[in-house]
């Protein structure tokens, strides 16, 4: 699997504490995408066995979240990851820019095996930072396995900021433009 970025602990990409994986590579090219750095092919190659072992070493997580990039453009690897992680007793939250009617058999298997899935392209004209777990109102949240329920979904604006030991900052989630600008200015003040 080709990986662009990882975060061991996050609480804003799904329920509970989660290990988050940004896959590398996406050809959907949604206008206004904030993660264009994950569009090109490349990134860090990892075997599913190594990745799962790494995830298993992280204590206290409820599950993993896979986003990107486009996880379903590496559907075979994504399916193997989902099945391995679920076998380890963790839950899976997957983001995809595809609509369910676009799925092939493997993509459908990824969807069916995941506990929560957000589907659909990001559409900038429908951007809404007050949605939970998604960026535009057309994107749909599904709970295919019944492990979670949509009734647990409370719409809210979520941002996660990590301050590392050396004072460096990482920003995740759905910040408004003011917060993004402020983080950006941190380096210029």
């Amino acid at each position: 699997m080709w990986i662009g970025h990882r975060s061991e602990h996050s609480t804003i990409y799904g329920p509970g504490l989660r290990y988050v994986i940004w896959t590398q590579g996406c050809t959907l090219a949604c206008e206004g995408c904030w993660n264009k750095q994950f569009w090109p092919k490349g990134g860090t190659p990892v075997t599913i066995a190594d990745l799962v072992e790494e995830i298993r070493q992280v204590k206290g997580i409820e599950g993993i979240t896979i986003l990107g990039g486009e996880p379903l453009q590496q559907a075979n690897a994504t399916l193997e990851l989902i099945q391995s992680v679920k076998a380890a007793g963790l839950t899976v939250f997957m983001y995809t820019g595809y609509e369910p009617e676009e799925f092939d058999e493997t993509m459908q298997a990824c969807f069916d095996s995941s506990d929560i899935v957000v589907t659909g392209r990001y559409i900038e004209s429908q951007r809404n930072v007050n949605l939970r777990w998604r960026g535009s109102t057309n994107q749909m949240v599904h709970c295919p396995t019944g492990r979670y329920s949509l009734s647990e979904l409370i719409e809210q604006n979520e941002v996660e900021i990590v301050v590392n030991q050396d004072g460096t900052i990482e920003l995740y989630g759905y910040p408004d433009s003011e917060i993004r600008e402020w983080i950006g200015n941190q380096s210029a003040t």
Partner: protein
Amino acid sequence: MSTVYVQVHLPITNVLCLDMAIREAGGTWDAPEIIHEIRRAKAATSEAIGTQNTIIANNEYARLLQSLATAVMPSTINVKVEGRTMRFTINRGRYSLSTPAGTQSGLQQTVLSISKLYDKNMKLIENELNKTIQTLEQQKDILSAEQVQSLRSVIEGQQNAIQSANKERVVEVTKEIEEKLAARGFEIRKRMVGKKIVYQAVRR
């Protein structure tokens, strides 16, 4: 889509080590004149022949390092590595640059590799100094040993300064984050994950 955004930093406290790290990474930067003087003085210490010349060269090296400790560094620096020019700006004791997370630019990897070389050079300088002290002590040249001891204390002081600067920066950054998020109506949950501070901010 969600944002993934990180800041990258270069250490500044020991600019000499930063200089060595950038050059070791195959890069160049617009170093201030004192760095050029130190490069020459350092070369002179290894080229000096005889105890007396070694003492003189080391004293000059120590003098310049003392000057560097109090020198005002440029507010911005331009680092060029592998054909890519990065402009860093001073921010709380570090040269900083904001960039989206990911691997497309390779910028983070470059900065990370420079930071690792920086840490390695800090240890290297320590080792060099220890070795020099041992050599001079063997020659029972007490005065020179004191000079080198002084040189080592400069380095140790700078190492401590790095740790203090990091702590100070974390305190300032967390205070600002809490103020900014609260002012925007976010509920904040703060937790420690290992040695990281994580803010989860929610606004309904």
